[in-house]
């Protein structure tokens, strides 16, 4: 498949002006900023202490004192969600970092070299893609033991081929352009051209993919902690909270509803943000209006 990359030709001011008219971008930005703010706030303040168990308050429904209710140990669900946000964001962010940090250079290198190097790298990608990511993440955490760090590594490894593919496809679309020929005629080698011309021109693509992988990372982390392989108690995590809620669905449905909503809202915000960025920066999607 060939990828068509239209390079937006705009000034920063023009992009900003468009950004503030783009609904997806604005909603996504607000939601993402809110989630991030809540996570940061949880370091200094939460309504209740999430490590203190108050058995007398266990499985209380939502009320004025506990907005989202309490769990089976009497912990405040809202406070746990706030602290859990930290974990989700950290895991997904570092996993995206790993994926970008390794995948983008690999993809750009494969595109610049072509031939055998390209073929080998892409076949390695196929290999990683052949392993259902979550299954492999489960395997990795099973080998090295559960925990947030291993969850990060597991999710990060499976981000690598994704970014490698996007970077390679984007770079391959830029390489035949005349301005690259001009740079070559100026005696620039493939590494310099990749740094000066290729990477800045595929940055948008990578940014959009980054938000998508961020969102997927949050979902994956929730999945891993749901099966007990993510962050370990007493550190609250959204997936773990859902696992605890499962057997208590009949008596305490709020234990499942609110952490799940937190995941949905966060992922939704990130996806909207990504869509918005793509909309603003990609003239092709603009033509669709």
């Amino acid at each position: 498949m060939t990828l068509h990359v239209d390079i937006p030709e705009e000034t920063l001011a023009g992009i900003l002006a468009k950004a503030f008219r783009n609904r997806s971008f604005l909603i996504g930005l607000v939601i993402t900023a809110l989630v991030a703010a809540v996570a940061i706030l949880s370091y200094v303040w939460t309504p209740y202490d999430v490590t203190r168990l108050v058995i007398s308050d266990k499985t209380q429904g939502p009320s004025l004192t506990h907005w989202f209710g309490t769990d089976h140990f009497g912990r405040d669900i809202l406070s746990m969600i706030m602290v859990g946000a930290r974990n989700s964001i950290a895991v997904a962010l570092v996993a995206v970092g790993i994926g970008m940090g390794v995948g983008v250079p690999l993809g750009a290198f494969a595109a610049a070299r072509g031939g055998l190097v390209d073929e080998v790298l892409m076949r390695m990608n196929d290999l990683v893609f052949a392993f259902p990511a979550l299954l492999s993440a489960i395997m990795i955490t099973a080998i090295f033991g559960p925990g947030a760090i291993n969850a990060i590594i597991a999710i990060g490894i499976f981000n690598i081929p994704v970014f490698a593919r996007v970077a390679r496809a984007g770079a391959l679309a830029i390489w035949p352009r005349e301005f690259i020929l001009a740079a070559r005629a100026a005696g620039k080698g493939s590494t310099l051209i990749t740094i000066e011309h290729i990477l800045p021109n595929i940055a948008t693509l990578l940014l959009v993919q980054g938000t998508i992988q961020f969102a997927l990372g949050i979902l994956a982390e929730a999945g891993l902690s749901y099966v007990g392989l993510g962050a370990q108690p007493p550190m609250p995590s959204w997936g773990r909270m859902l696992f605890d809620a499962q057997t208590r669905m009949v008596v305490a449905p709020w234990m499942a509803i609110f952490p799940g909503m937190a995941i949905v809202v966060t992922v939704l915000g990130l996806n909207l943000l990504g869509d918005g960025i793509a909309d603003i920066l990609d003239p092709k999607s603009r033509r669709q209006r």
Partner: protein
Amino acid sequence: MSLLEIENLSLAIGDTPILKGVELSVAPGEVMGLVGESGSGKSMTALTVMQLLPFAARATGRVTFDGIDILAASEDQMCALRGDDIGMVFQEPMTALNPVKTIGEQVAEGIRWHTRSSRAEAEDRARKMLDRVGLPAALFPLSRYPHELSGGQRQRVVIAIACALKPKLLIADEPTTALDVVLQAQILDLLRDLVVENRMGLLLISHDLAVVTEMADRITILRHGEVMEAGDTARTLSEQLHPYTRQLAQASMHVPARPRVHEAGQGKPLLQVEGVTRDYPGRRMSLFKRATAVRAVDDVSLSIAPGQSVALVGRSGCGKSTLARMILALDRSTSGTIRFRGETITGKSEAELKPARRDMQVVFQDPYGSFDPRQKVEKLVAEPLHVLDKKPAPAERREMVAHALHEVGLGPRDMDKYPHEFSGGQRQRLSIARAIITRPKLVVADEPVSALDVSIRAQILDLFAELNQKLGIAYLFITHDLTVARAITDEVLVMHDGRIVERGKTSEVLDHPQSEAAKALVAAAPDLHRAIARRLQEQG
């Protein structure tokens, strides 16, 4: 009575006015030429007649086709007209056909839709139509897919689709712009014959005054969405009453002044190409078998003297761009040697090539694609300074960029702009500034003006001529356009199927071509002088 009557047509897309009070008519069997530079609203006029405008477009005025009020017609009425009574041919043959359907399906589809005939009947008619446009079923069965055809052949399929039901009106929007001159002449002949055969009206849209003059009975000249002048082709263009008409005509025939002419053989040659061949590996047929290699450039030798301006002309796919890339050391030759300033550059490493690169620069065709949109002009124009041994300090670099910009007629303030802030012509000036910043001895220019409007093209040719005179830069102009070759070069090399088949002084080769390839090129090249003379003669 005319077939198509456009009265006081105005069109706006959103808040942007595109057309203002356009008047135009086409009679049955008449060819109306619609001429204008890019952005003049030619295509929008055509799309208004077809009612295939973008969603946000609003048209006012009156468009009558065969007694039907087009602007008031329902979508169902338009569907009945399109493809049946009005056919349309587009500019870009490479993308105009559906890649997953056979040419037979695509031609027969419209026939079946409009006539409700059986598949067999429709295919039969499609076969006849394809045969008529020069794609006989013996060589081009209906089961061919578009990717198996060349650009010229695809354009014939598009014409077959448009003319399958013998429409009363054919609209052709730049039908030959994407093709080389020989194909252009063939397609224009085909269109002319179809007009006569079917007494079809033809609205021919083109930026090329010579093409329109050869084809059209009457012309309408459009600028910024307004009709400048309209009337009989020969009279309008010979009298040139309207200043814009005169400007267009003169720009089309412009020859820059170049008092000093460099002859070959003056002193040591600057560039020597000896027996250069380039093979590309054949397509892989199976895992172990490859088709025989494609020879893009076949045993080519040539030489260019310092300050000499040489044209390399040929049809598309003849290998001229491959040759240019090898000269620029952007592609490896399979065999042969290229010497630049007496030193061999074939087979050298990038580091060893640095001194040669300093004296050899390039200008590309596409003024939009040849700049990195993410960088500012200063950085872009300064890019070739990379080959200097001693990198200039920032202040010195700015100085050099400002100087280069000045030489191509741009100001120092343009340094801090991005390429998209410039028009096509200005971008080509930037491209030239980038090419001359290292004070090269040779500039290779690959179709440097073919993407430009005629008036801009004249200015850029002037600039090339001026720099040649002032700085003594030698040029290798790669072009399929003989007018460009004639305007700016001393010597011409004609390339065909990878070989150089003819060489000599530009005027001699173009006036008295010897080889078949050169004769075909010369005969096919549209020429405004000749076309006007012929028209006047016909009319007595």
